[in-house]
């Protein structure tokens, strides 16, 4: 039984790859207007639900054998990011309905979502599979009721905002190529809207996580904010998305320039999330535990 449960990450890894391929295939079918396109949609949904179900099963199984929420070791955190990436991709997919598009844009939309799953979820799963899955003990500072809500909010926030910056990167590449070649890209505003939708889904989680982090720090260290390296970088990445959300209302900033801000926000998250150990200030950080 245990060995079966231990194989779950490999299972959802395969399922994510299949899901990405199915999404693209579905796009091709819609584009070519093949008659099985409609029933094929059920396969997409089935795979989607199975993959998320398997992932959630693994998540809760680990939670049941852990004494704490399984969002502590690198393995667990990467796996959780894969999960949130999938969830937000799914939500966006449901909300934006690319299969309702016509012709080549249906294919393009599906390819974007295939890339989101294929690059996002699969890559995070691969990252998780490369880490030691051993259950780890919590250091004293993490033994708090704030641990689960704070970290899971960040997982949700990071997952969604990294999707947003990925979409923005996609937008910027295509847009600049089109501008260079002098082609008019009609789907640009659609992708821009998708970026905004994902950002608006993840941003409240980022904000809540930031606030909860401050509350936790107050509970654990007696100060809600002390410009610790990780805190500061969390604020920096938050500030980038605030800038983006405000600049959307400034004429001329909604398109390419705004997307560049989102990309830099993604880079900031990336640094906060994975490269914080490299920073000189992190040597004194309270957030570096390993």
């Amino acid at each position: 039984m245990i060995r079966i449960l231990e194989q779950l990450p490999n299972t959802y890894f395969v399922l994510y790859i299949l899901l990405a391929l199915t999404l693209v295939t579905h796009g091709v079918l819609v584009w070519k207007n093949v008659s099985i396109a409609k029933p094929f949609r059920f396969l997409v949904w089935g795979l989607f639900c199975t993959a998320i179900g398997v992932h959630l099963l693994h998540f809760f199984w680990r939670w049941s054998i852990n004494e704490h929420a399984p969002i502590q070791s690198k393995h667990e955190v990467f796996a959780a990011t894969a999960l949130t990436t999938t969830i937000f991709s799914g939500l966006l997919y449901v909300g934006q309905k690319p299969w309702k598009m016509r012709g080549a844009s249906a294919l393009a939309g599906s390819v974007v979502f295939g890339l989101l799953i294929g690059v996002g979820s699969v890559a995070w799963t691969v990252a998780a599979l490369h880490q030691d899955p051993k259950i780890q003990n919590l250091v004293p500072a993490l033994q708090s009721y704030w641990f689960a809500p704070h970290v899971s909010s960040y997982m949700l926030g990071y997952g969604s905002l990294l999707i947003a910056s990925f979409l923005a990167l996609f937008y910027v590449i295509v847009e600049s190529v089109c501008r260079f070649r002098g082609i008019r890209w009609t789907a640009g505003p659609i992708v821009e809207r998708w970026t905004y939708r994902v950002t608006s889904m993840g941003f409240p989680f980022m904000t809540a996580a930031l606030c909860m982090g401050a509350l936790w720090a107050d509970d654990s260290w007696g100060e809600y904010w002390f410009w610790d390296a990780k805190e500061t970088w969390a604020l920096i990445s938050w500030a980038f998305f605030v800038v983006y959300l405000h600049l959307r209302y400034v004429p001329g900033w909604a398109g390419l320039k705004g997307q560049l801000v989102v990309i830099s926000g993604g880079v900031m998250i990336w640094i906060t999330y994975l490269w914080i150990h490299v920073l000189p200030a992190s040597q004194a950080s309270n957030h570096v535990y390993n």
Partner: protein
Amino acid sequence: MAARNRTPLGFGIILAFHLCVLAAGVLLQNLYIHASPFVFGVAANAAVTAAIVGAFFGRAFLWDVLRGFKSAAVLLTLLAASCIMGTLFIQDLDLRRVNVFESPEGFAKGGEGEGRYPEFVLNPTSTANFGNTQSGRFAIAQSFGIIKVFPSDELKAKLEEKVVLRGDQEARVERVAEVFGRSAAEARREAILNSKRREIERDAADRYAKRNFVSRNWAKKHIPNAEEHDVGWFGRFGLYDVWKWTRSLHVFDIFEAWWFYFLLGMIGINVIVGTIARAPWNLRDFGIVVTHAGIITILTGAFIDHCVAKEGYIHFTYGKPELQIASAIGDQKTKTYAHLPFQVRLDRYATEYYHELLVEVVDWDRNGDGKPRQESDENVFVVERTFPIRKDIALELLDGKIKIKVGAYEPRVFISSDIVDAGANAPLLPAAKLGLYISRESDQNLFLTRSTEPWLFAFDPKRSALEFRDSRFEYRYARSEEEYRRLLTTPPLPDNGALVLRGTDGEEQRIPVTLGESQTIRFGGRRVRVTFQSIRSAFAEEENVNLDSRLQRREEPWLYVEVDGTVLGVPRDDSDFVSAPPALKGATFRFDWNNPKDNGVRRIYRVVAAANQPPMLVQIGQDAGVRAEPLRRRMRVALHGLPGYLELAGLVRSATEKRVPKVVTDEEFLREGGDPKRDEALAAWVDLEITGPWPSIRRELTPFDRRLPYGEDKQGRPFVFLRLVKTRQTRDWFSVLSAIDKDGKVQKTHTVQVNSPLRYKGYRFFQATAGRDRDGFGVTGISVTYNPGVWYMYFGFLLLTTGTCWIFFFKPALDKRRRRRRNEARREAAA
């Protein structure tokens, strides 16, 4: 437009003026006039610049610029940029984190860098430590203003003892005492301090003069505290003010910088103005107002906090009563001490560690490296796996062949133990683990390191005893009561050797040594009084010989004998005769002590254990007879003329011995006293059930139990060993703190853990750091905060979170519903 065209010119003029002032300042300073005008020049120019800039933008700046989304974006980008800079530009971290305080109680405490730089920990009761302040790193830290040292009165007094006043100064002291009617001691003390102060000032002025190419007299006259002005290269080029000015920008601590606070203030104004001017004031969009109100609340709260809050550190040392009580906190930022309205006392401190289940699978034919096993090899464990312990969870081993189920798990128990914990690595036979230490405080083991404390086995003739110089340490296990008694009362060692006297005529006389007794002998026709004082190493007398080299030398015991009032040291070497005192004309001495039977052993330290008897330490010496006393963890022994300590690191009395674990409640934890130097008081306990190809077993396990064998191979040897091991990972630190009011009454007691502070009178005491001091005592760092306005911040966080959720979750949902309704209405209207 015209103004814009003039901009470069205007700025060029200002820049040129700045450069002129700079040059003039340098010139003036080198002309021995202190260059303060330079600062005023810069300030005046800054004011002019600000006025010009202000004129460019006009009055409308506030409403036209600050209300915009773009200005919000710019300000936030500036914030992000400064934050990035703040985490990248860091002064030498090691120095930043070191603080040395002296509290009003008169003792010093180290800061966070304590563990890393023990030389920074000042203990003003010892002048030797004060000497460390002169060391290089400390001097650097001090010059950065990171460390401040305040010597206590006690230390000052100690320093005074070392100061010798000159003759004329002494005369002056007497006169002062006479004229002003003071006590001589007081006057003397004052004179010493004055002389010391003058000396310091003179040195500082000297240094300043040398570095800045000014005369010493000028430095003395114009720079009252030259030490502060000594700024190295900047000072050398007359750029002291530039240095001061760059320092005021706080490049290396941006989060403390005035301009950073200014930026935050601008963001606050921007948020207020923007919200008032632009926010859609209706209920649906009210989330926007709520969010921005949250940000303003947080910024205001931070400002209030900046004005009101207090914070600081207390470092308690568990095991040193004078360092277990505090009535002040040291603030790391201002490097000052603030008094608490009450006292805080550390009652108890302990570290709790995580425990893991270590499973070792044995291949009795091969070593761990896969090579065939040799007779002498011990490394037979092929597979070693550790499992974190989780209740009710089965662990699977060897592809599920063996299943281990943790039935019950108590992470915090006390193991009742009369002497010492042998640990899980203990052998299966009666054995004792001994360490020999040359002093009580130092951990300097005679066997080089702690880890080389050897195990002695009761029934292994080769490894039942070890010899160190003239002493033997052995472990004996009595299987019967009779044997136990015999081991406790073995008669003393037989032979003390003899003193051999040889006269010029070849006459030899042999006197058996009986220590401490005087006897009168006849030699060469004279009566001589001989007293045997002691047998010990000659080098023990020489204080200046390095202890290590003394111990490493192959020394021989000398006989110290008093002959007619003259003390002689007589070496053992039989070829070496010592000249006798003049009373015995031409006679020589020899210490004949070459007993091959006892191998030179003069003392035996015997640890005697038995199944149902208290373990004892028996000391057998030629001079001391036999003395048995109950065994304690650390006992005093003599190590070849030096006072030393025998430490018992582990004791196994019999293979069947079992310890009883006791689950600790919080109350008991408060009551029980722990050993300040060890963390072993707290342990874990599990109840395991092991199933597999062999008959299942169910067993309780503690870290102090020996390996639990399971299964067997063809020769009947265990297949798997299980142990509960203590990891190095901390599970929690416990500091039991009591708040004591001015009447000395304990008002509140709380076990402080990392996420559970002591709260009293608005102050909160948090577990912050933990470690050990140089003497091995547990040091617990408690951070103290006083922040009555924290609820205001909580409210701000609530507003911010609610507001964003409102904007991005509730409002879109409401919009969607409205759109659906409108569409329906439109459809109905169309129908």
